[in-house]
């Protein structure tokens, strides 16, 4: 069997399906010619589609046959001809002819050698009766005669029955034909066993050979099955139902597994094990049916991009990587619009016009890359262009002009924060509004839509070099990681996305460190006041558990841009939960977003953190939250003390690095530092870690590493999932200090300054520095070395 193109394969499946309905329609048409408008339109559409696709795929014979059929149908549809038995017959033989050719295409990739000129003539004559057919009287009878022949031919072409097992073994030279004959005679005499079985028992062939032959036989059978028989369309709701049932089966299985211990009956143990295996496989199988490759969305992009590029007079090359990355169908649906929007954006104002590109010394043709890959239970999608990039200063100006953010806050914003502005509602940087984009709606919607399905969007951009959007989404919507907590008798699930941290409370302090502002409990978390919500009080109206010594842990949660702490009676576990919607009766309760079934079969409610925060008045109504708020937070973040690692660079200069960014502090003997390309590297925990000298990466540190000590002090931190080492002259201290960001003190690599122990220290902009020296993971020298 010739390997078929995916397109041809799809065409065959679809057409086979359509032909089935077409035949029914035709027959119905003949029975009831007056009530035919709809079925005629449907028939016409089907034949038209077949014709179009054939032309596209280069099946000229099929095309010519369908073409005349289409002519005839269009007359019927427009009411210029009325349906007669003669016409129906001709159309039915057209269907047969199409089917015959399809069968041939499926088998060999060719249309076959059948001659359809008579059918074409007949159809043409029906279209235009004035065109005399050779013998009108005969042609009246000939089509009915043609139908059976055509279909009989199809019948004759039906695949041969799969070869017998004995035959296959003989072909493989393992046994002789007479031996097979003997066995067959045995079978005829009443031996119930299979041929293979008998042969193995007689010692004529090895069991493996029989297995091989059986597999071969199966394969031939499957191939002969034909494409139309191998796929089936199923309602998604049907799959959902199956998913539900399988989920339930998994729970039942878990319960049974608990009952079965080492001292249970051996037979029961084996059966349970089988049940276990089958259930797992069944679950995976059902999950898989809902998965679709991301290509179902992407495949539309080349066209979209091409059209857009033409209308903007740009030239763009598209590259896609990881098209077969699979995602749950619901997620595919959810990301379709955001992705399209991002792509349109990239084409419209990401990539510059050819003239501009040429002037900038770039290839005239722009480049857009879509990349998808799985990583740790998530799907990552990257959309990058090599366009003009985003100018953070322009964003700053724009935000100021639009009055979205106050100037004071803008002045303090880092490059990264500025880039984040494009996700704000009402923000657009396009200088001119085009019909494609730039109306100020867009990226904020993209962000909301992606966050709604538990994903995140991130943007990085380099002016003049391009922009990359990084989207991270869960594999499936239905299952989310959650923290299970208890309040009273009930368990509640908190979605992990809202969870910031768990804080163990200081039991030595009165009320475990929870203080009171006019009856409102607050907690000092690293110098910041955290409003506290008591879950039991909020939900059940019970007396607060504060002051009973029962509180040990605060769950710090994020709702919108606000953080708050929640007191729970008990923290149980983190678990992957299956989200189920609440019934209509309970939809109006703001504190819950859904429910889930726990491992023991009981139901637990999923907390809606945003709703709960609103209910507890931790955050105001939605509209109150704006960037002003966020700015205020930034401000307080600016001035709140932070743990800083003080290091020395050069001879006298002291720099501070936020401790939260630091992974480890290491001492590395200088002799272990190796050169790889232009960088220094060191082997670190089985990885090759690039090393940078702090004095090299920050400007205006004059006295470089003239004399290096034997042991290098290295600050290790994570950059895009890899360890990177920063060599400093010495590690001085760790202090808690508020950093004031003076814009005057700002320069590349430095965020601001502070006075620590009577000495001025400067705060290193570690992410900024890293972006500069290691813009992309790919460009990490060590990786290139390994490859």
């Amino acid at each position, binding site marked *: 069997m010739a390997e078929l193109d995916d397109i041809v394969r799809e065409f065959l499946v679809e057409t086979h399906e359509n032909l089935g309905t077409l035949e029914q329609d035709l027959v119905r048409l003949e029975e009831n010619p007056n009530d035919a408008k709809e079925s005629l339109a449907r028939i016409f559409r089907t034949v038209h589609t077949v014709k179009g696709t054939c032309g596209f795929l280069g099946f000229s014979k099929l095309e010519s046959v369908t073409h005349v059929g289409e002519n005839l149908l269009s007359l019927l549809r427009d009411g210029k001809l009325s349906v007669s038995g003669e016409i129906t017959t001709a159309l039915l033989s057209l269907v047969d002819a199409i089917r015959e050719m399809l069968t041939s295409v499926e088998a060999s990739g060719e249309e076959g050698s059948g001659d359809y000129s008579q059918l074409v003539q007949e159809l043409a004559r029906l279209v235009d009766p004035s065109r005399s057919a050779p013998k009108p009287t005969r042609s009246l009878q000939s089509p009915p005669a043609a139908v059976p022949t055509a279909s009989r031919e199809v019948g004759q072409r039906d695949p041969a029955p799969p070869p017998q097992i004995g035959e296959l073994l003989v072909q493989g030279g393992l046994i002789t034909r007479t031996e097979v004959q003997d066995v067959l005679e045995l079978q005829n005499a009443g031996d119930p066993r299979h041929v293979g079985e008998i042969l193995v028992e007689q010692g004529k062939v090895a069991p493996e050979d029989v297995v091989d032959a059986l597999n071969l036989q199966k394969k031939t059978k499957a191939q002969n099955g034909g494409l139309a028989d191998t796929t089936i369309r199923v309602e998604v709701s049907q799959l959902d139902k199956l998913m539900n049932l399988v989920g339930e089966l998994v729970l039942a299985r878990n319960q049974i597994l608990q009952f079965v211990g080492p001292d249970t009956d051996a037979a029961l143990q084996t059966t349970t094990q089988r049940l276990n295996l089958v259930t797992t496989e069944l679950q995976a199988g059902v999950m898989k049916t809902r998965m679709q490759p991301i290509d179902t969305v992407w495949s539309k992009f080349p066209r979209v991009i091409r059209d857009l590029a033409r209308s903007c007079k740009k030239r763009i090359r598209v590259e896609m990587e990881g098209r077969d990355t699979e995602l749950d169908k619901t997620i595919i649906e959810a990301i379709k619009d955001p992705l399209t929007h991002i792509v349109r954006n990239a084409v419209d104002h990401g990539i510059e016009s050819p003239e501009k590109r040429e002037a900038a010394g770039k290839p005239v043709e722009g480049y857009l890359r879509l990349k998808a890959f799985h990583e740790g239970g998530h799907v990552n999608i990257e959309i990058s262009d090599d366009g003009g990039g985003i100018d953070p200063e322009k964003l700053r100006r724009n935000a100021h002009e639009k009055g979205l953010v106050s100037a004071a806050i803008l002045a303090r914003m880092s490059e990264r924060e500025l880039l984040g502005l494009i996700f704000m509602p009402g923000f657009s940087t396009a200088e001119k509004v085009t019909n494609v984009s730039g109306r100020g709606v867009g990226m904020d919607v993209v962000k909301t839509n992606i966050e709604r399905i538990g994903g995140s969007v991130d943007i990085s951009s380099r002016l003049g070099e391009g922009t990359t959007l990084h989207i991270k989404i869960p594999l499936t919507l239905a299952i989310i990681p959650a923290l299970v907590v208890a309040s009273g008798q009930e368990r509640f699930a908190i979605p992990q996305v809202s969870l910031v941290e768990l804080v163990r409370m200081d039991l030595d302090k009165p009320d475990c460190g929870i203080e009171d502002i006019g009856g409102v409990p607050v907690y000092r978390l690293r110098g910041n006041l955290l409003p506290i919500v008591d879950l039991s009080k909020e939900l*059940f*109206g019970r007396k607060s558990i504060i002051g009973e010594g029962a509180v040990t842990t605060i769950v710090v949660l994020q709702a919108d841009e606000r953080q708050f702490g929640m007191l729970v009676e008990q923290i149980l576990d983190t678990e992957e939960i299956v989200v189920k919607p609440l*019934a*209509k009766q309970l939809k109006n*309760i703001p504190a819950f977003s859904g429910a889930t079934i726990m491992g023991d079969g*009981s*139901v637990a409610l999923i907390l809606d953190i945003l709703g709960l925060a609103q209910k507890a008045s931790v955050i105001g109504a939605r509209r109150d939250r704006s960037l002003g708020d966020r700015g205020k937070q930034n401000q307080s973040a600016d001035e709140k003390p932070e743990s800083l690692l003080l290091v020395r660079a050069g001879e006298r200069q002291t720099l501070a690095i936020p401790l939260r960014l630091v992974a480890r502090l290491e001492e590395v003997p200088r002799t272990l530092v190796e050169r790889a390309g232009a960088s220094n590297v060191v082997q670190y925990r089985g990885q090759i870690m690039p090393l940078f000298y702090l004095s090299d990466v920050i400007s205006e540190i004059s006295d470089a590493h003239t004399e290096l000590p034997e042991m290098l002090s290295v600050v290790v931190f994570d950059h895009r999932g890899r360890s990177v080492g920063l060599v400093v002259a010495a590690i001085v201290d760790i202090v808690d200090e508020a950093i004031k960001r003076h814009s005057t003190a700002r320069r590349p690599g430095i965020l601001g300054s502070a006075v620590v122990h009577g000495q001025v220290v400067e705060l290193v902009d570690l992410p900024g520095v890293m972006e500069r020296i290691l813009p992309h993971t790919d460009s990490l020298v060590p990786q290139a070395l390994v490859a």
Partner: protein
Amino acid sequence: MPEENQYCTFHLGNFIFGVGVREVQEVIRYQQMTQVPLAPATVGGLINLRGQIVTAIDLRERLGMPARDPKALPMNVVVCSEDGAVSLLVDEIGDVIHVSSSQFEMVPDTLVGPARELITGVYKLEGKLLLVLDVNKTANIDPETLKVA
């Protein structure tokens, strides 16, 4: 008048109620329930019905009857309402009975309270009355009541 003349019956206190057999999905014994805080009192909790989460409505509360003895475990009559499956918590399950429309009578006007709206009619059986419950109205908890709490 309902065409249905086969009713699944159950007891609540001294009363016998019935819902059309076609509206009943299944009858199950007491299930462990998860309380829903902040929900109206008519919501008895959530039960896990083979992977489907079903809201259980406390029928006594819904009909304005005194609460059940806390030691007595209610049974579930799972009915198909317009809003999906809903479980009605009842004291005890009765039989499926046939009634003829000649036994039917409208609810007397003297009946007031929440029950008035939910009971569509009465079948006069021998020595007792069968109160017919409107499943959709019973399942539809007035959203207004959700504003409590």
